[in-house]
């Protein structure tokens, strides 16, 4: 962003205000991701409940950001980098809100799962995947604050890893379900959890794209990385090797 101040200093305060909101929202969402993962792993219903309740604050911030950005557009008619700031805040707030929803959904399923027998090995894998998305979000938000398009580009690339982890888990859950139908309920929940995390990664990617847009004025040109088509294959023989 341009380091120079606006002649009308209230304009600077408005722009800083909406950006402070997005950073605050980002912080809440980061915490939600970490906590839902922890609640799942430690089978901690209180923490899961906390995440479910915490989503209201995230939704409230989205509403506040919508109002503030509409006001800035109406009153200040932002142009160039200022316009990009406002547009990126609007889009990023939607992405963050969706990530918050996924965290809430994970927390709900965590509540259900703790009434069932744990599936061996699943907790660690889900935790690693969540951790990766959480770190990606942290880096994307840091990149936003520092207007670091390079860091944002790295975040986008890292989504590949999350997709791979999801595909690996997908196969693993399928195997568990085939081995013992009593695992199906738990595995279905775990699968939705893994899918939620994978979708979080996509939203973080979209967020990182906004960082590139706000810093450079251009959206990244190449398509997002697509690594694996596992979920779209028919699994007559699910353990028959690595694609």
């Amino acid at each position, binding site marked *: 962003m*341009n380091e*120079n101040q*606006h*002649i009308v200093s209230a304009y600077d305060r408005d722009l800083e205000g909406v950006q402070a909101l997005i950073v605050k929202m980002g912080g809440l969402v980061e915490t939600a991701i970490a906590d839902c993962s922890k609640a799942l792993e430690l089978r901690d219903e209180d923490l899961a409940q906390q995440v479910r309740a915490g989503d209201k604050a995230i939704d409230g911030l989205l509403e506040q950001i919508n109002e503030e950005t509409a006001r800035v557009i109406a009153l200040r*008619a932002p*142009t*160039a*980098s200022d*316009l*990009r700031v406002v547009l990126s805040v609007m889009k990023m707030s939607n992405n963050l809100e969706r990530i918050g929803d996924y965290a809430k959904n994970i927390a709900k399923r965590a509540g259900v799962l703790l009434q069932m027998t744990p599936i061996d090995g699943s907790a660690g894998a889900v935790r690693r995947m969540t951790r990766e998305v959480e770190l990606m979000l942290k880096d994307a938000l840091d990149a936003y604050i520092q207007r670091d398009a390079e860091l944002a580009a790295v975040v986008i690339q890292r989504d590949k890893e999350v997709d791979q982890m999801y595909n690996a888990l997908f196969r693993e859950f399928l195997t568990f379900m085939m081995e013992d139908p009593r695992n199906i309920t738990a595995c279905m929940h775990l699968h939705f959890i893994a899918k939620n995390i994978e979708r979080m990664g996509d939203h973080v990617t979209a967020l990182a794209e906004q960082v590139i847009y706000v810093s450079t004025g251009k959206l990244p040109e190449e398509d997002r990385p697509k690594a694996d088509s596992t979920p779209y294959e028919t699994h007559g023989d699910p353990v028959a090797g690595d694609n």
Partner: protein
Amino acid sequence: MYDNPNLERKVAQNETKISARNVQVFYGDSQAIKDVNIEIEARTVTAFIGPSGCGKSTFLRCLNRMNDTIDICRVEGEINLDGENIYDKRVDPVQLRAKVGMVFQKPNPFPKSIYDNIAYGPRIHGLAKNKADLDEIVEKALRRGAIWNEVKDRLHAPGTGLSGGQQQRLCIARAVATEPEVLLMDEPCSALDPIATSQVEELIDELREQYAVVIVTHSMQQAARVSQKTAFFHLGNLVEYGDTGQIFTNPKDPRTESYITGRIG
């Protein structure tokens, strides 16, 4: 970035109407314009923006040799209208100004009737063979100035009796009456209220079908609203010239960015 889908803003063809090469303008010893190169396109609204004293009005006035009237003003370089240098000795500035019309900041109707305001140019340029011809030219110009319906019943009332916005549209009609090819507008709306401003902006958009319109404006929002091309001047330099959409969303030069976002540059 994808192509701008807003077709209305697309320039149909990049036919150059005015081409300026290495233009420098001096007022006595001080240099007001430094080596400006620009190609102004036909059937396009081009906006000149920039802070006060940046040279945008001076440059605009070069385009129909209005600076000739200022003794200490000296213009160097070349300005071509349809490939012909307008500063060539053989060019008659009066004929040139019939081709390159101008509308000023403050509406300045002649202290004559509405009819005579319009008829003045066509008369001195001998564009009408007879009274009926002239009547037709006057009506056409007033229609093109989007003011016909408001004045058709009082063509012989004084032009100075109209409201500010009507006077400005009368001046635009007067400028188009001589069938110009280029219309220069120096802050045409700065003395008008928002409604009259919108009417003039709508008119500018209609005029674009036939003329190259060059508008100097201090209102960046106006430049954004009416123009397809924008040129940003700063301290006598042409800093950046490009599609209006690009200038207002992603300017290349940091000085342009500072100016259009309202920062101290």
